[in-house]
Structures are given as C-alpha cells and as structure tokens.
C-alpha cells in the first residue's frame, strides 16, 4: 500500500528510529511500511494518523 509516511516524517525532520520510538515498533517496521512492503494493522494506522494529526486516508492510498 502506497503512503506518504516518508514525506510526513521528513517534514518533521524525524529519523526512522525516531518515528519507530513514537509508534513503539521497530525501525525495520517503519522502513517496511515506508517502502510499501508491509501494510500496517488498523490500530497502527490509526496511531500513525494521530501522531501526524491527520486522517488515515491522507496518509495511505490503494
């Protein structure tokens, strides 16, 4: 699933490790989501959306 996670992260000048820490997941998970290799669960998608103060649809697209 394509997403804007990398862009949103870069806008805030966060590293993958920073974002991983905020989401309580591994850096590998953040990297896999950014590269669209792994689709996050709904709870994690909500967590990501809340963290960036936006909606899930504005981050993830089919």
């Amino acid at each position, binding site marked *: 699933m394509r997403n804007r996670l990398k862009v949103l992260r870069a806008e805030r000048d966060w590293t993958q490790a920073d974002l*991983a*820490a*905020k989401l*309580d997941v591994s850096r590998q998970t953040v990297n896999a989501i950014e590269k669209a290799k792994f689709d996050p669960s709904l709870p*994690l998608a909500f967590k990501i959306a809340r963290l960036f103060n936006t909606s899930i649809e504005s981050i993830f697209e089919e």
Partner: protein
Amino acid sequence: MKQAEQTLNQRINQSNKHLAIWTGTWLVSTALLAFGPKLIWDFATALTILAILLNLAAGAGMTMANIRHLQSLDELGRKVFLDAAAITLGVMVVFGVCYELVSFAGAQFAFEARISHIYFVLGPTFFISMLIGTRRYK
C-alpha cells in the same frame, strides 16, 4: 523519544531471556526423563512419574514463554515469526509423513528412523525461514 524504542527492545530482551530459561529447563527435564530411570534411580516408578510431570510442566512453561515472546514483538516481527512457524509446520508434516512412509516401505537407513530426527530438520527450517523473512522486510 528513544524510550519507547528501548521499551520494545527491553520487552523483546526480557521475553528472549524467559524463553531461553524455559527452553533450558525443558531440555534438562527431558534429559532427566531420558536417562534418569536407567542411570540414576533404577526404574523406580514414583521418581519416573515425577520426572514425567516435571517434563510436562517445563514443556507447558516453555510453550507459555513462546507465546509471551510472540506477544512481545511488534506486528512485523509477529508476521515474520508466524510465517516461519507456518513453513516449519508444513515441513514437519510433509517431512514427517514422508520419512515414516519411506522407512515403512522398507528403505534401509544407516540408523533407526525416529521422531526425534525431525527436530534436526525443524530447527534449521525455522532459522532459515526467520532469516529470509527478516531480510525480505529490510
């Protein structure tokens, strides 16, 4: 904000430690059950039953530690682990049935075919599956 990441790592480290302790306990209790009756207590029934109960209890502890370890991982970690477990389960069924049938069909091995031989296939299968799964999402 490194604390949350450390919390994940701490959770994984702690569950790894518990898993190692329970696996070790199970191994020791299995060795006790395998060799104890003949070498230590001369087939005394009460001690053998005690060793069986100890082995089952350690096995239950190891299983619970495995479940807790799985729960300590994040969702990608769980996916990699479960994929590897599924592959290992498939290999166990296919290899186990094939191994038994081949020996049942009269194939001559240099050794007696035993269920424990499957462990020598399962261990590397799980390890390689975990390795491939981890690399796939790197």
